[in-house]
């Protein structure tokens, strides 16, 4: 995948569930190497926009543009993954290979090696044989990221990946995402209700608030200008000490 190539886009999309539109006029594109944060209040429609972007939800109007088949690694909200299942961390991570294997085919040696590399890459290689349900919140999150990486994705999508984590665990996960984005040129799309957290890492932001019918996308540094923030939130907002992430070109990425 060449740097900057368009991976997926929503063009004038109306997104929602059933026949009920939540947000209209969504314009959003993700290119190779992007780090996009989808932010907004709880219940604001962030996950709906992400689902539409990934093709898990058909737009009610407008279209989803997909220039070439897209390998997606997805990390759901941790609460959606039921810890009752008797699976080891490695068995969870192996699920990432599902799209790459024909139905009914077993994992081969190369697949297992890729899974083990993904676990090691995110720092939980030594936990491979541990039951997923016995891992800490941060370890589970890393295992889910390893599962997403095992899919050999061009786009890594994460839904509230730092929810319920302590500040140190949160920073660990975000640094990992930064590294994957910088070193591998992996496109990252991250949903969060925490603008201050996302702003430190994402180079572009998409602000979503269905209650106000608002969808606004732009480079993080522009979106975080005091005037832009005031326009988004309808009142003066100050993000204490946040330095927006540099745009991809400024980071020296290819």
């Amino acid at each position, binding site marked *: 995948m060449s740097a900057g190539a368009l991976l997926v886009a929503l063009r004038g999309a109306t997104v929602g569930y059933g026949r009920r539109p939540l947000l209209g006029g969504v314009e959003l594109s993700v290119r190779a190497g992007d780090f996009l944060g989808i932010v907004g209040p709880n219940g604001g429609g962030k996950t709906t926009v992400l*689902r539409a972007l*990934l*093709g*898990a939800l058909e737009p009610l109007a407008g279209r989803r543009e997909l220039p070439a088949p897209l390998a*997606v*690694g*997805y*990390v*759901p909200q941790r609460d*959606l*993954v*039921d810890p*009752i*299942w*008797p*699976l*080891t961390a490695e*068995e*969870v991570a*192996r*699920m990432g290979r*599902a*799209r790459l*294997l024909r*139905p*009914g085919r*077993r*994992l081969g040696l190369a697949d297992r090696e890729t899974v083990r590399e993904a676990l090691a890459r995110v720092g939980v290689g030594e936990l491979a044989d541990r*039951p997923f349900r016995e891992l800490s919140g941060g370890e589970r999150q890393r295992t889910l990221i390893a*599962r997403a990486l095992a*899919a050999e994705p061009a786009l890594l*999508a994460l839904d509230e990946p730092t929810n319920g984590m302590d500040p140190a665990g949160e920073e660990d996960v975000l640094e990992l995402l930064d590294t994957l984005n910088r070193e591998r040129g992996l496109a990252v799309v991250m949903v969060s209700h925490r603008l201050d957290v996302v702003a430190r890492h994402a180079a572009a932001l998409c602000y979503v608030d269905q209650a106000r019918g608002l969808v606004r996308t732009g480079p993080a540094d522009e979106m975080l200008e005091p005037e832009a923030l005031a326009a988004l939130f309808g009142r003066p907002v100050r993000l204490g000490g946040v330095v927006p992430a540099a745009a991809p070109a400024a980071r020296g990425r290819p």
Partner: protein
Amino acid sequence: MVLRRTVFVSAALTQLSTLGLVAAIAVEERLGVEVERAGVQLAVAVAFSVAGALLLSRLQAGRRLPSEAGVGIAWVIAGALAVLGASQLVHAAHDLGSMVFGSAVAVPTSELAFLAAVALGCAAVHALFVRELVLVSFDAETARAMGIRAGGWNAVLFLTLGLAIPPAARAIGALPTFAFLTLPAAAALLLAARLPRIFAVAAGLGAASAAIGYGLSWTAQLPTGATMVAVAGLALVPGAALRLLRG
């Protein structure tokens, strides 16, 4: 279904299967059919069960009702209609008890052969597609995001249930069928830690409790279906004791 936290789907499908059986017998009586056609009755029960399974596989939480409510509604309506239908039967009303609780002592060889064939077919589908079925059961959201047809695989899983339940319910009754879909799996989850071993232990416990319960019902002159269920319930004890000991 135990791990999916949807055990009552099995209960709803056994009720739907019983309703299909009652409907088939009622139609036979209305048409004045002299000799009961077990094959036709079973086919109608399978049709009811499969239709219910496909419907329940698509059940999603709405804005006002959780999906469990849909399962409960299917169970209770099917149960009530089966009782109402059976109350209108002239000749076969006495069969309702064995439909619900089962007899398991006078099952024709042809029905046993059909049950074995369906069970083997379903087990083969589960074994072949275990990776896909576990993924959509464990994390359907991620499966959909990865471009996997979660709804389709869900339907496959429910379809196997819908096919296997009617011949089992016809042979041993609705209650023992539901019990054997739940108790051995729950006991195995308490005893074993890894998924392949859990499947094996559940199958072994199911077979053992059926055999022991059957033998016990003969020697102690007890109702067969209920005895098998009670023995399957006892299979929970070692696992529960183990959990207690391990804290």
